[in-house]
């Protein structure tokens, strides 16, 4: 950075172009007028800068800038005054109305303070600063050959003095010592999380069904996500609509309910039995046309939350994968590659129950899935 011979220019480098032929913007159809439309950045001087200031114009500009600075001052004072004097009335800011109000006042005064200052300084630069443009040498960045050579020599000399070139045993054992040291921190990261094991292969439905069966029941009841109300077949008898269900007891009995819910959420749809594909009918996992699919999209895992009654399509709002509810949630469009897994349903004491886990892993694909 050893430059700046500072040719602070006097006469020979005029920032302004002298007269000459009519100007035009380079690269646009020539306006045949006397207009000068040089691109702004063509190092044309900021207006006023670099010239003898017309003292009267300068005075005017000074007054404008000063007023803007005073305005900025007033705005900052208003900011503080509002904060101290008004924003905390009636026991402080609480709730949306007052938050909006405070946002407006604090933000408004702050905006004004910054913008007034910014405009003021800009006018100052453009109208009042008398700096001339300067010209400086651009030096070659590279060192000259002699320096390079001499450093190369220095480098080699140092290496020789240290003996690292002459004593390979030192060199190699040093590298040997360094290698595991570099790996050690990686080992330290092992406890970031558990290994995947079989976690991604089953959901809480499996465990819930097992528990229910141990009590001599056919399966676990479906409860509505949110209210946890068990669902009767009669509650959901008319075709149309879609609701989200989870296995009964998922919140009380599981260790990490949110994680379990994130895998076990299931959508329940009532499709007209005559619309069901033969393949689905053969499965027999529906109860009078009531079918259950995993709600976790097989693309990258958004909840597939939209259901179009007329076409019986399930749509994932994230990337629009579309599944056919009447044909085992086959993919009919979009980036998802696999159908939504289906949950086997049955009826027990008038309630809807699941009789097993999803037969395959739910959600996005993964390498070990197979």
């Amino acid at each position, binding site marked *: 950075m050893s430059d700046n011979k500072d040719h602070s220019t006097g006469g020979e480098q005029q920032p302004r172009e002298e007269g000459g032929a009519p100007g035009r913007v380079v690269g646009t159809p020539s306006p045949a007028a006397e207009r000068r439309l040089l691109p702004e950045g063509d190092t044309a001087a900021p207006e006023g800068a670099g010239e003898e200031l017309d003292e009267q114009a300068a005075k005017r500009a000074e007054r404008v800038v000063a007023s803007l600075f005073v305005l900025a001052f007033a705005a900052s004072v208003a900011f503080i005054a509002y904060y101290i004097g008004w924003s905390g009335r009636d026991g402080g800011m609480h709730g949306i109305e007052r938050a909006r109000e405070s946002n407006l006042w604090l933000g408004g005064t702050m905006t004004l303070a910054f913008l007034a200052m910014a405009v003021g300084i800009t006018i100052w630069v453009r109208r009042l600063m008398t700096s001339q443009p300067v010209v400086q040498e651009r030096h070659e960045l590279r060192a000259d050959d002699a320096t390079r050579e001499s450093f190369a020599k220095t480098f080699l000399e140092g290496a020789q003095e240290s003996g690292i070139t002459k004593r390979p045993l030192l060199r190699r054992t040093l590298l040997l010592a360094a290698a595991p040291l570099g790996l050690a921190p990686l080992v330290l990261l092992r406890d970031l999380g558990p290994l*995947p094991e079989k976690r991604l292969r089953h959901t809480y439905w499996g465990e819930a069904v097992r528990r229910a069966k141990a009590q001599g029941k056919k399966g676990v009841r479906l409860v509505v996500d949110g209210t946890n109300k068990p669902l009767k077949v009669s509650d959901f008898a008319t075709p149309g609509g879609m609701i989200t269900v989870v296995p009964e007891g998922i919140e009380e009995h599981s260790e990490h309910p949110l994680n379990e819910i994130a895998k076990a959420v299931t959508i329940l749809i009532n499709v007209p039995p005559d619309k069901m594909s033969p393949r689905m009918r053969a499965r027999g996992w529906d109860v009078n046309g009531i079918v259950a699919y995993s709600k976790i999209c097989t693309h990258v895992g958004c*909840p597939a939350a939209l259901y179009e009654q007329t076409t019986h399509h399930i749509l994932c709002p994230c990337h629009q994968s579309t599944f056919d509810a009447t044909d085992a949630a086959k993919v009919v469009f979009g980036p998802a590659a696999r159908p939504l897994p289906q949950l086997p349903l049955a009826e027990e004491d008038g309630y809807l129950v699941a009789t097993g886990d999803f037969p395959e892993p739910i959600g996005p694909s993964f390498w070990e899935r197979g």
Partner: protein
Amino acid sequence: MSQTAPAAPKAVEGSLNFLDDRLGSTNFFKRNARKAFPDHWSFMLGEIALYSFVILLLTGTFLTLWFKPSMHEVIYEGSYTKLNGVKMSEAYASALHISFDVRGGLLMRQIHHWAAVLFMAAIMAHMLRVFFTGAYRKPRELNWLIGIVLFTLGMVEGLFGYSLPDDLLSGTGLRITQGVLEAVPLVGTYGYMFLFGGEFPEGNHGDLIPRLFTLHVLLIPGVILALVTAHMMIMWHQKHTAMPSRNQSEKQVYGYPFYPVFMAKTGAFFMFTFGVTALLSTVTQINPIWLYGPYDPGAISAGSQPDFYMGVLEGALRIMPNWEITAWGHTLSLNVLIPATLPLGIVFGGAAAWPFLERWVTGDNRSHHVVERPRNAPVRTGVGVAAVTFYGLLWLAGANDVLADKFHVELFKTTWFFRVAIFAGPILAYIVTKRICLGLQRRDAAVIDHGVESGIIVMSPEGKFSERHVPVREEEKAVILSKENAKPEAPAVDGSGIPAPGTKGPMGFLRSRLNRGWTLDDIPVEDRGHHGEHHEVEEGERAGAEQKELSR
């Protein structure tokens, strides 16, 4: 040693001397205070990025004073009454607290978010300016690479940032992140378990949000800050590039001195940036998390869009066909893997390799300080516009549902449109851009040869009307003549049958083919002295031009 100007106020002189006695800093100040800064509107884009980053640091620090990076479940009882009694994470509750109970909290949250958007937008615009003017050429390749890393880090930082408040939208973003992670072959599920500390979303101990928090407020900003500092120091050391003009040359830089002009201007610019983000945050609402509600793995709000800089990934995921390979007990999710890595890989990888590729193809190993007008490098400009088209189409595809809705077309048709356009668009953009560049070159050549129309109509004695042409003004001529014309290619073998250097072997063949492509159709623009009267090209300019000739 310490003789400053006689009239310097005591306080200033005193502290300068204090520093100088201990650091010898006056030498540095003397050398740098009047550093010349070339001026052009597009040089401000980088400054916007810099200042939005400063704003992010300031507002972000404010937010950390109340934000609780915790997934611990609480039941909300607070001043946003609509959510009273609702279960949520402490993180979400504290973001509500910042918004509704901390005075100025909502403002700071909104400024933080707006500044993040502005930061990414400014980085993009700045990168485009650098690309299209060839400012990345030697010696500035390192700063170009740093810029690309900054862009990538900014994306990750933004993603983690809007994941922090743990609202429904951010949870959906994390869910997608998890799904993408799982698609990674071999180690995907391990990466997933290790990032979340177990299963989505809470893991075994609710580690995710605290981890993202540390990355978001410490690690990534630290790296960004270090890189920004390096970026600025390198820029300062190498001196800014300049737009071609009569006053600029490869040997000299022309501009207003840092102190006081540039310093004042850049100070004003910081305030503009802060003022504009404050204004946006005052009059518009950004990321109203209270409307989305807390994260619930079974729910999603329709029409939710990520921040704009994530739009490309979203678009790529949407238009990818559903290819998946299952064999030997393993699954390869091309439908996720390709969109998640390929488009950004092409854009970032291509951008990183470009300066080196260009140097190899053109064999141009000189340093460049005066940048090139986009029209004078039609291949570069064409490739740039093709890349912008590619990115832009993916970005639009990320909003295909919105587009389908707005223009009343079927959703599936928009997807198919983008599947085709993503290939055809960039090619078309390249061809059209290159043609436009060549057309502009032709016009430049004509301006130099024939001058410009003066608007004066003359009638000849025979009664014919014609418009009088006058020579173009000197400074415009200098801009036009900054073009470096293509040289006739060296013959592949010289007189004694020895191949020209760099043309041997298949790589040599490829190189010379590409080299030919680079300058194909070049329109020579030169001053053949039609208007013999002006030859007062500046010394520096001529020296620069000679240097150009020599180093091929």
